[in-house]
């Protein structure tokens, strides 16, 4: 009986350890609430971006955005500015990019966005984007 009780506890410790390791490697990946981030996405992003794979709007699909090389969504016509970008959309990069006006983050981009200054909402959003696989 007591052994059975220990099993979920050990599992929790193990999972917590994994989370902690991830958080240390990337301070934004697990800081947010994906459910709340879904609402942030609907308010801030959904008019120009879809989360469905292969569905481009005015902006490219954000399915699989975290870990994707910039400017590589098929059948989307990127600006020269983003085509020449040499970065991968890590959570750190997304945090930096989305926390400021897009024209400052990537001069010449087609994207029109003033930036999300609410740190909590930004964390939630990026956590949500990380679930889109």
């Amino acid at each position, binding site marked *: 009986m007591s052994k059975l009780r220990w099993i979920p506890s050990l599992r929790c410790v193990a999972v917590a350890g994994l989370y902690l390791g991830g958080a240390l490697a990337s301070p934004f990946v697990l800081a947010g609430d994906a459910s709340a981030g879904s609402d942030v996405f*609907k308010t801030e992003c*959904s008019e120009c971006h879809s*989360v469905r794979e292969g569905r*481009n709007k005015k902006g490219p699909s954000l399915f699989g955005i975290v870990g994707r090389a910039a400017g590589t969504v098929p059948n989307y016509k990127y600006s020269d500015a983003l085509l020449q970008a040499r970065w991968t959309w890590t959570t750190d990069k997304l945090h930096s990019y989305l926390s400021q006006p897009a024209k400052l983050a990537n001069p010449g981009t087609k994207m029109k966005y003033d930036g999300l200054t609410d740190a909590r909402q930004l964390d939630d959003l990026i956590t949500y984007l990380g679930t889109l696989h």
Partner: protein
Amino acid sequence: MPLRLNRRAPRRFYLWLAAAALLLLASTSAQAIPAYARQTGNACADCHAGSYGPALTPYGMRFKLNGYTDTDGNGFKIPVAVQINGTRTVPVQGQSGNALSEADIYIAGRVTDNIGGYVKVATDNLGDDHYSSKLSDVDLRFVAKDVNLGSKEATFGVSVNNNPGFQDAVSDLFASTQLGPPGVTGTLLNPSSPNSLANRVVGATAYGVYDTHWYGELGTYTSLPLSEQANLGYAPGGDPGKLSDTGYARFAYMKDMKKQFFSAGVVALTTRRQVPRTNPADNLTDLGYDLTYQYIGNRANIVQASFVDILELRHYGSLPPSPFPGVAAQSHGAVHDKTFSLTYTFLQTYGLSLAHMQSTSTRDIVRYQPYGIADTTSNQFIVFWTPFGKDDSLTPMANLKLSAIWFRFSRFNGSDSNVFGAPPGFPGTSAHDLDAFLVTASIAF
């Protein structure tokens, strides 16, 4: 006590007017342009809270301001869409009926990055295998986007259109919402007015938006010759007359807060109008203001409210003959049209909408028989369901809309009873006798 005359012809005209107003209002459920969705990759719900027009979200307003030119950048899309409406009409008086009531073709979309447009050709089923096609609303635009003015951005454009107010960015004016108060008279900016300007004029307006908040527009209109109106499908009886010295002005402040939207604006339209065209000109000036508010949130619960108030000042060029000895028509007058509308949409799929419409006039016993005032008060209640047109729908770029509409008059032609002034011994018509219940099904693809 009202003065009573033999008014059989006006009664028929007013009944026709009430029926036409109902049809116009019933068509408010029908303004979806899937061609735009295919062009942009957007879902219907991105531009319309209820996933079906006509009311626009702030994103839809920006698409319109950008001249319908925004795109997903993925090649040329055929700028054509089709809409078919079926209607079950149950009037309080008269026969109920089912009809495939209207078929519309839209030519709508971008030509270049700076040129785009909206053209609607409507075919109405008149019954008995008779159909009537007409050129409905047109809005062709040239636009210069992303113009830097100092540290701010601006958009400038020109719209060639045929319905003053239809081209408006906020899209809450009567020509956009089709919620102009019906009645026996009305303002120039109200398409429900007799001899309205809608679709029988052509004009050009220049507009600009500064810093996404400040919207201004100036333009002019002229009426089409009767022969051109006939070619476009319009009977001469509704001729808006000859217009001259016509000016249109519009200014508004818009604030998009992502989860909420607010706008406040003023509008004016002035003209010298001759109806019939050989008559001396009336000087008409519309002055109005409008307020809108939208709560959008995370799109699950959306509330859209608007109030439009238009006052028309009239200086008549001639006086109609008076049937009353010693009583002459007024040389000046005013008409006041007001509409308040409120819509709640759940999950961008289920909706409730209500509108309160009121048209009032100054007293003129000769022009507004039999009661001397033309006051009309009406309401529209709609329940609707739009299952598609969302990002996660079976199809985000086409839609179906089922609506149940109740349209009621509490006052018509200055009275709530015997609105046409039937003489003693003849049955009178109450305002409620003009009420109707409609069920409509619209598909757009």
